[in-house]
């Protein structure tokens, strides 16, 4: 293998330092030296480079140690690079412009009419985003592959090339990820899930989708149609045309509208509500058993209204999971709820853009 040239090495080190600051926030030079495993003079050189290009700045920051002597911190300049992130939902488009380091620079949203088509949704996104950001990333709830939405219960779209719709509306390139995958990236990079190697995020919206990210990165094929796993052959008719799909059996649409009253009623002892939650939990656990067997995650996050469902029906969910997975798959599996809440998909979409942007610098 040929050794990389000096210029190439320097580029890689610049990207590594920027990534370190973007991901972990302001640090001293000593901390950077330690984290990147480079020597002090290399750090000094690339820090000077990056300061000249306007990517980083040095500030007198927090005091360290008992002496309380303030130390110089290196930090990203948020406006130096930015990523436009958009989340398309059934009833609205949300937009945020994220600066380097993860700060939100701008934020806006606009309503969508029910049953909106791809091009109209793209126009709404275009009006919010304009030309902002070096990268533009959209999170769309559904089965997403290579920029296209194969199926979305939430939006009622099938076979929609969303990346093309967005490109046409904005005259720029877009990355498209599914909402669950975006949220997984967000929770891994800015939430509590950074210990997960294979992180599975379940998104409860009007439909049910899942996203698998490996080491915090979106994967081709990682977008999973959780809601259309058949849990009851010949069961209730699903909008997708099949019968007995998880989202039909759970009546996901009802939970998306109002899970609170169902869990509150069950909490107060309403027998029908308890029974409904128990059955939903069992169905979810069984479908999850199949997904876990197929994908082998080490952590699952219950997002959207699945958070409430999991916390109120964890016994049937985990019982069904125990009965449908092999011991070595379930023994190291952590089941958790997300910490970023509604912001997860936007944050993750932005992080997907930053990952691409930093990769390009290498």
């Amino acid at each position, binding site marked *: 293998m040929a050794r990389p040239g000096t210029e190439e090495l320097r580029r890689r080190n610049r990207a590594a330092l920027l990534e370190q600051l973007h991901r972990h926030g302001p640090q001293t030079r000593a901390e950077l030296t330690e984290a990147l495993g480079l020597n002090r003079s290399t750090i000094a050189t690339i820090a000077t480079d990056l300061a000249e290009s306007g990517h980083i700045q040095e500030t007198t920051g927090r005091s360290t140690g008992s002496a309380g002597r303030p130390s110089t911190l290196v930090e990203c300049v948020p406006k130096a690079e930015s990523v436009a992130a958009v989340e398309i939902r059934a009833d609205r488009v949300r937009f945020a412009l994220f600066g380097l380091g993860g700060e939100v620079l701008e934020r806006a949203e606009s309503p969508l009419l029910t049953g909106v088509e791809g091009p109209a949704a793209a126009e709404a996104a275009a009006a919010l985003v304009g030309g902002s950001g070096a990268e533009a990333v959209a999170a769309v709830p559904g089965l997403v592959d290579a920029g296209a939405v194969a199926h979305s219960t939430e939006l009622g779209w099938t076979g929609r090339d969303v990346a093309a719709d967005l490109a046409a509306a904005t005259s720029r390139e877009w990355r498209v990820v599914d909402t669950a995958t975006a949220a997984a990236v967000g929770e891994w990079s800015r939430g509590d899930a950074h210990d997960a190697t294979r992180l599975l995020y379940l998104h409860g919206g009007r439909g049910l989708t899942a996203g698998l990210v490996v080491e915090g990165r979106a994967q081709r094929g990682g977008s999973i149609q959780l809601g259309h796993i058949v849990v009851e052959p010949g069961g209730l008719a699903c909008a997708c045309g099949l019968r007995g799909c998880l989202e039909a059996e759970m009546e996901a649409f009802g939970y998306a509208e109002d899970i609170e009253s169902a*869990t509150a009623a069950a909490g107060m002892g309403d027998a029908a509500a308890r029974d409904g939650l128990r059955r939903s939990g069992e169905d979810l656990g069984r479908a999850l058993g199949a997904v876990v067997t197929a994908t082998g995650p080490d952590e699952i996050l219950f997002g959207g209204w699945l958070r409430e469902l999991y916390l109120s029906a*964890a016994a049937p969910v985990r019982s069904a999971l125990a*009965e449908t997975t092999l*011991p070595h798959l379930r023994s190291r599996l952590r089941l958790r709820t997300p910490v970023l809440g509604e912001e997860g998909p936007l944050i993750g979409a932005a992080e997907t853009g930053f990952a691409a942007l930093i990769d390009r610098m290498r």
Partner: protein
Amino acid sequence: MLLELTGLSKRFGPVEVLSDVDLSIDAGEVCALVGDNGAGKSTLVKCVAGIHAIDGGSISVNDEVRAISGPRDAAALGIEVVYQDLALCDNLDVVENLFLGREKVRGLVLDDDAMEQLAAETLSSLAVRTIRNLRQPVASLSGGQRQTVAIAKAVLWNSRLVILDEPTAALGVAQTRQVLELIRRLADQGLAVLYISHNLNDVFAVADRIAALYLGRMAAVLDAADATQSQVVELITSGRSGTLGLGADTNGART
């Protein structure tokens, strides 16, 4: 092992309330303790907390056998107990409650601002967003917020083992969720948690292991990943389930 109970026995007069109980809890894990009313759960907690003297067996903390003869001993070992009827002072605010009774013990001198900042940092490390005003008297907090303050106290004082005896019993659904997430986060930050509840959904939501007490005996200790609700219900109500439990081949306890 952070906490290890070996052959623990406790009697009240002639009645043996805990008999030969083995249980161990590691740092980073939530161990749920379940059992019918009167099974001995709270008694077990009070033995570990130093409120009851034990009649047999031993309690080890970090692999060292310890005599815990009072709540002070327990606190010195990093054991914090959160009871359902919390020991918070209604007339004091959140910050004051977090620091109550600890100033002298550690010889700490902190000014008000420093205490407030430390309190805010602790709450935010636990992703607690429900308490906006740290200067509000605890009397004005909801039940869930009060539990949150009590639990945060354990984190603030660098406890290593937090024991919660039915912390959600008096809470509504939304507040229970927040406390459950908090319990899970405590363990994920490296604390050991012993969590007592009668609600199996709450137990399954957070537990890594489930220990079932039956009439003062440890019927079984299961990995939550392997357990089913019906197994746990059987262990609670009859002390056994299939090949598990009292009088069966194994009780699953770690050796």
